């Protein structure tokens, strides 16, 4: 845990969030079983895990909504247990369930936040207008939030979080339930925030999302951190993608298998599984080699690693919906 009063030159390695041995139970159910995590200032950390793995509980504790049973947490250099208000002043939180006032308009919601940050009338209005513009909500600014679509509501939610200009933002499953376009928009917003030096801790069930956004990924399973590293480090631990080639006869399968090293055969389905690193060149090479074989053209499907593969690799068991609170 870093002391924030030390030499400013060490900024790059300072922890915005430092968690040690965090524990939490709900009744008899152990939800967090000694979590450690560090988020360096100005970086994105993704907590990856299925429902019930403890992601939302972790965010709830860091956001001062839930009390921990054990362990220490420092956010923005402040101890969560003794200085919750200083932590609250440094963070912004966008949870899984929309934290907007549905009976107010988009603009009123933003001005409410500005008032609670004591920004003053003119500055509050200016900032609200800026955020409405940036989040493509200007047209709906005067409509009640209850009438917003899911994507609009999520954008308003995040915009409200940004009114106070927080240095650390917690995003709990920011793209769950969003359509692909809204998801892209959300990703762009996250990147933009990081470019401005904001620290982001987000949770996701989606390996692609963690891969896209995060500098570091922590994999949470049954309340334990089973892996923590960069996306590249994590991927080395999991089986890569593969290409499935489905042939029409056994002879073709045999000749292709002889040609392609490292491929595994599924005799019953006449399928050859070829390891694949996701690069276009590798695919082209594979197709060229298949061309040279004088066999009927196989059907081809690409399988990229997903969270199931990560979980299988890290926990040795297939991913199942885990019980209990998130």
């Amino acid at each position, binding site marked *: 845990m870093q002391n924030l009063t030390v030499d400013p030159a060490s900024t790059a390695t300072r922890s915005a969030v430092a968690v040690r041995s965090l524990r939490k139970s709900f009744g008899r159910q152990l939800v967090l079983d000694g979590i450690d995590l560090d988020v360096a200032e100005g970086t994105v950390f993704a907590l990856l895990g299925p429902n019930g793995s403890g992601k939302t509980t972790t965010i709830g504790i860091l*956001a*001062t*909504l*839930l*009390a921990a049973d054990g362990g220490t947490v420092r956010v923005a250099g402040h101890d969560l247990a003794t200085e919750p*208000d*200083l932590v*609250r*002043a440094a*963070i912004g*939180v966008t*949870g899984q*369930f*929309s*934290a*907007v*006032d*549905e*009976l*107010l308009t988009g603009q*009123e919601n933003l001005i*409410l936040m500005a*008032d*609670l*940050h*004591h920004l003053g009338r003119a500055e509050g209005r200016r900032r609200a207008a800026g955020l409405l513009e940036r989040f493509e909500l200007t047209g709906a600014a005067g409509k*009640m939030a209850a009438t917003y679509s899911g994507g609009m509501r999520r954008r308003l939610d995040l915009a*409200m979080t940004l009114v*106070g200009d927080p240095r650390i933002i917690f995003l709990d499953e920011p793209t769950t339930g969003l359509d692909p376009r809204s998801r892209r928009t959300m990703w762009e917003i996250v990147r933009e925030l990081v470019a401005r030096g904001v620290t982001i801790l987000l949770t996701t069930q989606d390996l692609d999302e963690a891969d896209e956004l995060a500098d570091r990924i922590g994999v949470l399973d049954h309340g334990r951190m089973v892996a923590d590293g960069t996306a590249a480090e994590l991927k080395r631990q999991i089986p890569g993608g593969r290409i499935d080639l489905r042939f029409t006869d056994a002879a073709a399968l045999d000749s292709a298998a002889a040609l392609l090293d490292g491929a595994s055969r599924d005799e019953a389905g006449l399928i050859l599984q070829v390891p694949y690193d996701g690069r276009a060149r590798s695919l082209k090479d594979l197709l060229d080699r298949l061309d040279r074989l004088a066999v009927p053209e196989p059907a081809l499907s690409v399988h990229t690693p997903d969270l199931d593969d990560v979980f299988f690799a890290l926990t040795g068991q297939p991913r199942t919906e885990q019980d209990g609170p998130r």
Partner: protein
Amino acid sequence: MTALSLAARDSATMLRRDVRHALRFPMMTVSGITVPVVLLLLFVGVFGHALSAGLGTPLGASYVDFLAPGILVMTAGFAAEATAVNVCTDMHTGIIPRFRTMAISRGSVLTGQVTGSLIRTMISGVLVIAVALLLGFRPSAGPVAWIAAAGMFALLTTALTWLTVAFGLLAKTPAGANSLALIPAFLPFLSSAFIPASSMSGGVRWFAEHEPFTPITNTLRGLLTGTPIGSSAILAIAWCAGITLGGYVWARALYNRGG
């Protein structure tokens, strides 16, 4: 800025939010005065003559003069019921956890709601008095007595609002909050609001003589129509202060329980 002025500023922000809600959905406020107005019409127009005849002199010349202060008490009760439902509904929306993660005065959410309810109930009280005047209510109060009556009504409303805010926080569903808040809404029936406690019988009479709404009703009636008040005023103020304190402590504890 000092902690106190920040708290006042946050509470004012929360009050603006509450007023916006009320203006956007005025039905809750309007429905709060429907029951008292219907009761006023029913008891003055339908039962008025029979009640005056049966009860005789203690009521004086006009039953509406006797009833109007009681209906005013009932208005506070029904308005408080709406408060419980409002608070319960609000507490289950996502904005409340957001407030909890912000560095704002902890009590401001509740203070805003209580102040908003207080304003709405005072307005309801004025409307109910206006209807009573139309029905022939002729209060004898001078300006000082009117101000004292308004003060009594405000005390009552504050007490009931804090109590029903606690109900709203306690209940898991708005329907549950509504049921709990029916207690203060209906207790005036078993008080001196409709007929004098002395004309009741047995256990009901004992209850009516000892429950808070009787001295509160008697005080308001005394102030507005000049009937004797006696020890009712001090009892009424004591009850209101006690309920306010209890409701406030309870509501704060329930609100802070979540975080």
